[in-house]
Structure formats: C-alpha cells, structure tokens
C-alpha cells in the first residue's frame, strides 16, 4: 500500500493519532501535497456516503473529520498559494429563532472536509447577517442555511428570500434540517437541498463547480 493509500485508509478509519505521521511520511516520500490533500478529501467523500446510507454513524464521521483535520495541519505549510480552498468559501448557520447546532456542526465539518473554507455564523442567524457575511468574505460559493423545527421554516424561507433579493451573485444557497423536504427547498427558491451531512458535502461541491 502506498503512503497516500495509507493516509486515505486511516482518515476513513478516523485514526487521528496516526494520520499526521502518515501525512509527514507521504511528504517525505516525495508525494505532491495537493495529491495528499485530494486523497483525504476523497476519503471523506466515502465517509459521507457511508453515513448517508446508514453504514456508519455520527461518531465515525466525527473521528474521520478530526483525523483529516490533523492531517491538513501537517500539510498546510506545504500547500501552494495562501492555503485557501480551491472550492471556495461556504457560509453556514441556523436561521433566526433556531438554536439547534448539532446537525449544522456536522454539515459544516463535512463541507469543510470536502474542501471548502468555512465561515460558521452559529445559531439563530438573522437573514441580513447571512447577506452581510457574503459581502464580508471572499470567494463565497455556497450559503448553507438550516432549520430543525417546523416553527422555524418561515425563517428559512425568509433567509433564502433575503439572500436572493440582495442582488449578490456568484454563490448558491442550500438548505436542510429535519422538516425540510426537496419540494419545500424548491418552493422557497433554494438552489439545493440535502437530507444529511454526507449528502450536503456532495451537493455543495456539485453546486460550487457547476
């Protein structure tokens, strides 16, 4: 097994104590840093898919994301340019009135692992704050808004409408959360919908490179 293959396998298995050393060994063996990063992103794609299909659960996803993050720490000084993501920036938050951050945090982890720079606005984010964050950050490609409760679905609708009415362009809006359906996402004008964290990463990537 090549060093890069080893890195991939250990990221997928969530071996956060082993991955930094393996990444260093892969670098020492002369592998291109970008290739090592791409391999880790690919691993997280597999992790996301397994989560979406119910093959693995939240702990497995969390430790894999942590392993990748430890590997990226080793890799960062060796990456070309300023180290910023080639997929762009993703702004994420739960909509006004919604304080449920666990699902949003998982989605943030997985989108970051897919290769985005994340700007996490936290919970209970007013619609205007999403707009301001798009203005304040470079290369925003995705805005991800979530709402866990039926009672905060109107706030999700308002967030999407406000972002779309801002006149700002160059990004796509994705939505999610327990009560949100693909039909509702379309109805409120979102560009994408994801039912879980693994799918959210796939959808974000798909929309960013479209």
């Amino acid at each position, binding site marked *: 097994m090549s060093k890069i293959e080893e890195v991939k396998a250990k990221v997928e298995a*969530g071996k*956060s104590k082993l991955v930094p050393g393996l990444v260093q060994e892969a670098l020492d063996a002369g592998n291109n840093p970008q290739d090592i990063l791409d391999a880790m992103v690919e691993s997280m794609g597999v992790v996301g898919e397994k989560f979406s299909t*119910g093959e*693995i*659960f*939240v*702990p*497995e996803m*969390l*430790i894999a994301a*942590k392993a990748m993050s430890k590997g990226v720490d080793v890799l960062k000084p060796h990456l070309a340019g300023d180290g910023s993501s080639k997929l762009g920036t993703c702004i994420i938050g739960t909509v006004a*009135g919604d*304080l449920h951050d*666990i*699902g949003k*945090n998982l989605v943030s982890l997985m989108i970051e692992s897919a290769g985005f720079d994340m700007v996490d606005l936290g919970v209970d984010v007013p619609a205007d704050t999403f707009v301001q964050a798009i203005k304040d950050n470079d290369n925003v490609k995705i805005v991800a808004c979530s709402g866990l*409760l*039926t*009672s905060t679905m109107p706030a999700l609708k308002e967030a999407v409408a406000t972002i779309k009415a801002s006149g700002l362009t160059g990004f796509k809006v994705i939505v999610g959360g*327990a*009560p949100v359906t693909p039909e509702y996402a379309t109805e409120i004008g979102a560009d994408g919908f994801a*039912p*879980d964290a693994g799918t959210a990463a796939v959808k974000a990537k798909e929309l960013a490179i479209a």
Partner: protein
Amino acid sequence: MLTKRQNLLETIKGGNPDRFVNQYEFMNLIMEAPLGAMVGPGQTIKNGWGITFTWPEGQLGGFPIHDDAHKVLKDITMWREQVKAPAVETSDEAWAAAVAHANAVDRNEEYVTAFVAPGIFEMTHHLMSMEDALMALYEEPEDMHDLIDYLVDYELAYAKEMIARLHPDCIFHHDDWGSQRSSFVSPEMFEEFFVPAYKKIYGYYKANGVELIVHHSDSYGVNLVPSMIEVGIDIWQGVMTTNNVPELIEKYGKQITFMGDIDTGVVDFPGWTPEIVAEYTQKACEECGKLYFIPNLTQGLNFSSFPGVYEEATAVIDRLSKEMF
C-alpha cells in the same frame, strides 16, 4: 368498560382492549419529585451537576450551553476531577409533594409514574457536548465506560430513594438515542456502552416493584429495538413515523409496545388545525392497529408546544375508539 390500567395491559399483552389507549392517559405522572433543577421558558439555570441550561423566550425547549466557559467536562480523561454528582435529596420536606401526589392516585385506574430525565446518554453530552461525547466513545472508551458507570450509580441512588418514597408502578424515562433519520451511535456501540447501563437501571426498577418501563426517545431507532427489548423496556414512547411503526409492531409487538407515530413536527406548529391533527392521528391508528400500539404525539410529556394540539389528538383518538372498536 376496562379501567385505563386494564386496557393498557390488554393492549400491550395482545389481549382484548375495548378502546385505544389514549396517549398518556394510563400514566399519572409524578412531576413533583426532587429530580434536580430544570430550566423553564425564559430562564438560564445551573443544575446540580454544574451544567448550565438556557431556554430563550419563544423557543420550544432548553439547551445545555457548551462554550469553553460553561462546559462542565472539558477533558474526558479528567472526568474524575471535573464531574461531581449532586447529593440525592433525602429529606421528607423535599419529597412531600411527590408523596402526597402518589398517595392520591387510584392505582386500580392509573399507574403511579415516576418521571426520570435526562438519561445516561443525554447526561454524557450534557456534560461535555454532543461532539466530544460521541468522539470519546472511540477515543477514550475506558474513561467513557467509567463515567457511564458513575452516572448509573447516581441514578440507582436516586432510584432507591424514589422507590422507597413513591412506590411507583411505572417509570417514564427519557433518553434520546437518535435523530429522525438514524440512531446517534451504531447498534454495536450502543450494545457496548449503553445496554449494560440500562440493564442495571431498568433491572433495578423491575426488581423493586416497578411493573412498567416506558422509555422516551423521539427519534429513529429501528436498529436499537432488540437492545430496547434486552434492557427491559415495555413501551417505546416517541417512536416516529420514520421507523415504519406497522412493520415494527408486526416484528416485535409481542415483546415491546410502540407509543407515538404522530410526529409532533407535522401537527404541533403555530398554524395547526383540527383537520391536520385528525388526518395524522387517523392515519396512525388505522395503519398501526389495536394491539401493541398507543397513538400519541411523539412529544416527551403529556402536552403540546402549541395550545390545543394535544387535546385535539385526544378527542380524535376517542372518536376513533368508538368507530374502530
């Protein structure tokens, strides 16, 4: 006409109930017991474990705060230093209201039901955040086992006092084990960490006069049902429609009863109408049938977040009982 208690037993034992068990009607919930501080609307409190909860105005519930300043357990390997269980209340004064309530219940009609929350899994993430708790199951399993044992010992100490005072017939025990789409942990991990804990807890209750264990988890949990049966749960309350409840009844009904199948999210919201409540309640009753099933909002207590929804569901279930039995 059967009493509420008799009708419940006929339903969960596959006998001849004369009507649907109507939501929480069989449980006379003793909420006055000194279980520890619980946050109310508009409040921020610190409970006996040092966990800070906040319930902002306009929200449907409270949350533990897990920023660096508030997280009780910052490093799982240091749990022995950082987690200190509160003392169990043992004074007559603290238990007086609960005892008076329990003594006033007609036990032929209803179950004197002790309410216990949060559960063991919930306590792990209340202490250190969901992310830290779930990762610790992998990264520091021995410490997690030891912490869980410590939490179990605390609950058993509380249970001993509570049973001596209230002599409950039923325990209504919260512990959310999943989201609406999946369990939080795999069945294997659940078996390793939480089945032994709940075998001790529910085994203790059953060995000390409790007849009925009702466990609340308003979530998906199909993959955990064998474990629920193994630990002695008689009724899983909060079962969501994402579990395909009719299929669960078919497969496991003789071993465990399912209470719920009316998801609060689709009926309990500001724009609810009697027609919406009737539609989903009727669907649940017709699809799940008369045995091993209790129609109920998936909410973890006997009320709704928006006034009138719970009562409307009760009225619909009464009507359906007349039509279907």
